[in-house]
C-alpha cells in the first residue's frame, strides 16, 4: 500500500535554511544555477556478456544498464511486435538508506517512467522484431542497477537505458522447423528516435533541474518530461506530494525541450554517426 513518509534522507534544519536562502538568490548549494545539470558521463559497452550496456554518471549518481536479447512469445494484444521488458533495482551499494529486497514503490515508479519514455517514443521499432508474428518474437530485456544514489535517478537511468539500447547489437535469429537458431551474426537495433527525459523539482517557488539527493529531500514536487528527437513530448510524470501551477508546468516543458536537445546530441554522439 502506498504510504506518505518522511524522507529517508534527513537534511539538517540549518542546511535546509541555507538551501532556501541560496535559492532565493538564484543559486544552489553546489554552485549550479537552476537550469544546469551536473557533469554527465556516458560510457558504453562495458559488459561484454550483455548485448548492449551503458554506465551513466550524473554527478555522484551512477547507474548501469544492460541489454539481454532472447526470443519468446509475444505479449497478449501485441502479437506482431517484439517484447520490451524493463526493470530497475536500487542496489544496496547505492546508499546507507537502501536495504536489499523486492523493489519498493519508488523503484517501481522509476522503471515504469523510464519504460514509458522508451515505449511511447517508439524508440525501438518493435514491429520489426517479430520473427513469426503471433508466435515467436525478439524479447529485449533492459535491466538497470543503481550503483550509487545521489538524486535524479530518473534521468540517469533513462540515459543509461537509451544509451544501452542505441548501441546494442541484436543477434540475428532464424526459425527452422519451429526451432529458433542463432546464426551468430549481429545487426543494429531498429532505432527510430532518441527519447530524453528531463527532471525538475520545485522547492518553494524555485524550479530546479537535475536535483541532488539533498535537494530531493527538500522538494515539494517533481516532474519528469520526456521528449523525442523532433522535440515532441512522449511521456510525463508528476511525482511527490506537492502541486505545480499551470505556468510552472508550461515553463518546465519549454526548458525540458531545450535541455533535452542538448543531452540528445551527447547521446547521439555515442554511435559515432551523429
Amino acid at each position, binding site marked *: *500500500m*502506498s*504510504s*506518505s*513518509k*518522511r524522507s529517508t534522507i534527513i537534511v539538517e534544519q540549518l542546511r535546509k535554511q541555507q538551501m532556501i536562502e541560496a535559492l532565493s538568490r538564484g543559486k544552489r548549494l553546489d554552485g549550479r544555477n537552476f537550469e544546469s545539470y551536473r557533469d554527465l558521463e556516458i560510457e558504453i559497452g562495458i559488459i561484454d556478456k550483455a548485448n548492449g550496456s551503458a554506465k551513466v554518471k550524473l554527478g555522484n549518481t551512477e547507474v548501469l544498464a544492460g541489454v539481454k536479447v532472447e526470443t519468446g512469445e509475444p505479449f*497478449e*494484444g501485441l502479437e506482431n511486435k517484439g517484447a520490451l521488458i524493463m526493470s530497475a533495482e536500487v542496489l544496496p551499494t547505492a546508499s546507507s538508506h537502501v536495504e536489499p529486497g523486492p523493489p519498493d*514503490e519508488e523503484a*517501481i*515508479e522509476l*522503471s*515504469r517512467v523510464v519504460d*514509458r519514455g522508451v515505449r*511511447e*517514443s517508439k524508440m525501438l521499432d518493435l514491429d520489426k522484431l517479430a520473427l513469426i508474428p503471433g508466435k515467436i518474437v525478439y524479447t529485449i530485456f533492459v535491466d538497470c542497477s543503481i550503483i550509487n544514489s545521489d538524486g535524479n535517478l530518473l534521468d540517469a537511468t533513462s540515459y543509461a537505458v537509451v544509451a544501452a539500447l542505441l548501441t546494442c547489437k541484436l543477434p540475428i535469429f532464424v526459425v527452422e522447423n519451429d526451432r529458433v537458431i542463432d546464426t551468430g551474426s549481429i545487426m543494429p537495433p531498429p532505432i527510430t528516435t532518441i527519447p530524453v527525459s528531463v527532471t525538475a523539482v520545485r522547492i518553494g517557488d524555485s524550479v530546479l533541474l537535475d536535483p541532488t539527493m539533498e535537494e530531493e529531500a527538500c522538494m515539494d514536487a517533481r*516532474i519528469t518530461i520526456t521528449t*523525442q528527437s523532433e*522535440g*515532441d*513530448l*512522449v*511521456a*510525463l*510524470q*508528476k*511525482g*511527490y*506530494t*506537492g*502541486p*505545480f*501551477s*499551470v505556468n510552472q*508546468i*508550461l515553463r518546465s*516543458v*519549454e526548458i525540458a*525541450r531545450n535541455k533535452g536537445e542538448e543531452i540528445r546530441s551527447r547521446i547521439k554522439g555515442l554511435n559515432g554517426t551523429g
Partner: protein
Amino acid sequence: MLIDENGKRSDNRGIDDLRQIKITVGVVKNADGSAFIEFGKNKIIVAVYGPREVHPKHMALPDRCVLRCRYHMSPFSTDTRKNPAPSRREVEISKVIRESLEPSLILSDYPRAVIDVFVEVLQADGGSRCAGINAASVALADAGINMRDLVSACAAGRLGDNIVLDINDQEDKEGDADMPVAYLSNADQITLLQLDGRLSPTQFSECLNKAIHGCKLVYEIQKEALMKKYFGDEVELKEEV
C-alpha cells in the same frame, strides 16, 4: 476509426464531451467516509478509514498524519481476468493517487494518526485512476477530513489530429496519447500529471487546457454529490419555495 466523419467518437460522444458521471456518497456503512462513482463504464468504490491509530506504530509521524492509499482492481473488472495480487501498475497508481490527494488535505491537523484510502475498481473502462481520485476526494470530504479543496481529475488525449476530452478504454488502447490530470479548482494547481503518447508543444497546451476544463466540470458533479447527501432535502425545499 476512433472519430467518424460527423466528429462522433466510438461511444457517440463529441470531442469535448465527458462520459456520464454519477457519484453516490456514503455507500459503505462501516467506513468513516465513502463514495461510489460510475464514470462511463467504470464502477469504483472508495472507502476512507481514519484519522485512526497507526499500525505499525513506527510509521507514525510526530507532526502530521500519514496518508495511505491502495488502488486495486477486482479480478472480474477487466476483459481477461486480472490476477488479484497487486501488479506493478497498481503500485504506481496507488502512489500517484496518494500524491494527487495529499496537497488537498490538511494533514498537520492529525499528528500521529493515519488516514487510509481504499480504491477498489469493480469494473474498469479506461481512466480508472481519474475516476478513483474523484471518488476518493469526495469520500475524504464525507469522512470529515479537513481539506483545502476537492481534487478533481480528468484525462484528455489525442486521437489523430484531434485533442479530445476524457479518453475511454478503446481510445486509450488505440489512440495516440492519454494524459490524466488532477486539479485543485480553487488553488488553480495541478496535483497529478502523466502522459503516455506523443504530443507537440501546441498539442500539449491544448490538451492540458482541455483536461483542466474537464476537471472543472467534474468538480461541480462532486460538489452536487456531497450537497445531495448532506443537504438533500433542504436543497429541494428551497427550490420549492
